[in-house]
């Protein structure tokens, strides 16, 4: 019995590298399937995921072709520790998929939450954006702020009430990603509405109203005087971010 257990341990230890790569291969495949990776990465990075799949497959093939039980006899603890560390991100992926950056991340990333960070400076302004009743993203509105000034807009995002917001106002925000969620930047627009206090932090709402661009203390502040604010279900995780 003892010999059998020992053999099983040796065999598993020898297989550990291949098991690690198989686990990561499954994780990347799962993320790529149905575009789940967009909950963490910029959609344009899909070739990077394909590259990872190809490399992981070739590593597994090489490990299998060179498989030897000998490698299981040395450094058991070290190899198990190595494997445990490399499994940690997969466990986190399993634990957090379905969640997204919210008001907590906003409070840590916004450079100024009273005069919210605006990326109106980022990217050239596009010409004559259409506003004909369709839902615009916060990125489209902020990038074309001057063209939308005084016009009716409809957009969606999450609510942030902040510590000292007045009753008739909340911040509507979404995160915009360049490469991955680690570099996500918040886009914020103030929403003025009589029913603003009804909405809690982190809920998703659709806002319709007149967009205004004001200059306060030398900084441009975007706001929407809303005549309609309604709760909407949170989009699937891969559609919660905006991308440059």
């Amino acid at each position, binding site marked *: 019995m003892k010999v059998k257990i020992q053999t099983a341990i040796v065999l598993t230890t020898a297989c550990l590298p291949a098991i690690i790569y198989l686990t990561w291969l499954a994780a990347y495949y799962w993320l790529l399937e149905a575009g789940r990776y967009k909950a963490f990465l910029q959609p344009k*990075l899909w070739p990077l995921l394909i590259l990872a799949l190809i490399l992981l497959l070739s590593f597994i093939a090489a490990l299998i072709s*060179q498989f030897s039980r000998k490698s299981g006899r040395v450094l058991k603890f070290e190899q198990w520790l190595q494997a445990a560390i490399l499994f940690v991100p997969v466990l986190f992926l399993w634990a957090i998929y379905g969640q997204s950056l919210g008001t907590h991340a906003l409070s840590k990333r916004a450079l100024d939450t009273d005069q919210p960070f605006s990326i109106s400076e980022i990217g050239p302004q596009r010409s004559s954006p259409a506003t004909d009743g369709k839902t615009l993203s916060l990125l489209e509105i902020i990038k074309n702020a001057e063209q939308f000034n005084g016009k009716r807009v409809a957009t969606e995002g999450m609510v942030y009430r902040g510590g000292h917001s007045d009753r008739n106002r909340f911040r509507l925000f979404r995160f915009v990603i*360049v490469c991955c969620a680690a570099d996500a930047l918040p886009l914020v627009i103030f929403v003025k509405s009589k029913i603003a206090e009804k909405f809690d932090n982190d809920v998703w709402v659709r806002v319709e109203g007149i967009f205004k661009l004001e200059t306060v203390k030398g900084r441009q502040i975007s706001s929407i005087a809303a005549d309609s604010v309604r709760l909407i279900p949170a989009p699937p995780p891969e559609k919660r971010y905006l991308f440059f």
Partner: protein
Amino acid sequence: MNNPVCDSAIFEHGHDHRSGSRGSRYAQLLFVLLALSLIVFFRDAPQFNTLGIIFVSIVLEAMPFMLLGTLIGGFIEVFVPREKVTRWLPEGRWWTVFIGAGIGVMFPVCECAIVPVVRKLLQKGVPLSAAIAFLLGGPIVNPLVAASTAVAYFGDWSIVMQRMMFGYGIAVGIGLLMGLLFTKAKAVHNEVSSEPIGTDAPAIFGSGKPAVWGEKIGLAVNHAAADFLDIGRFLVIGAFCAAVVQTLVPRQAFVAAMGTPAFSILIMMLLAVLLNLCSEADAFVAASFRSSLVPLSGQMAFMILGPMLDIKLILMYLKVFKAPTIAVLATLTFVTVFLSMLTMY
């Protein structure tokens, strides 16, 4: 193709046991226990969501680059003979540093992919100063980083040029200095300073008979697989530390402290070390600080130091350099970037 000699040579050589002290093992074990306890006990906390998303994102983005880096390292190991490397980049020649700092132009990847390649190049006999110049300059002086910087700054090519020139100049300067201060044997771990015995393809695949291409490729990939397991865990731990910082420290606190230009540069440098952003994305974050009136020298400091020095890189450097070398390299890099940016201001 079961080849026990090859297998044990690859997995025993330099992977872990010699370089992993007991303290380091305990620290790694502590990391695993901490990570698992966070999943078990704090899964519903908003802080956990932020931490988890940032952590997973950094690893998912960096891992393909690192897999690629280790694969290139594996091919260098098997296909590039030491004699050729030492002929191209001979030891003791100052001009090799200038080549090293510019290799990124032909090898445009971010910093995670460069560390495993540098490890292999050092094993193959590349001079320490040239390898360090590549390590520091490669993630900045490359076309992808130039393009992303241009997009982030609306095609302002003067900023792109400044980033490339400062990146190249600082990499050359520190490469030369490190070459003067350290010998290779003193700077890097024993298994990195010399080519391991028994991993040479002809030596493994027959008595004096050269290995066939297929076998060589298999061996190269096998080397890459072993190298990734060895260095990959430091990427994971580094990404976790970066995520913790991003989760707990508000960026506003840094901006509030930027009273003078020197302070702005210092704080932006500190941010670069703590945020651990990819060199292909950091320009967008740097550009976002314009709205907080951070001077260009501060933004530039962020874009130059980040690809050279951050938490995950320091941890990955541990698999290449000895601790005193890392301390000197980090200090020199920090001070040089600070002084350069102060001059620029």
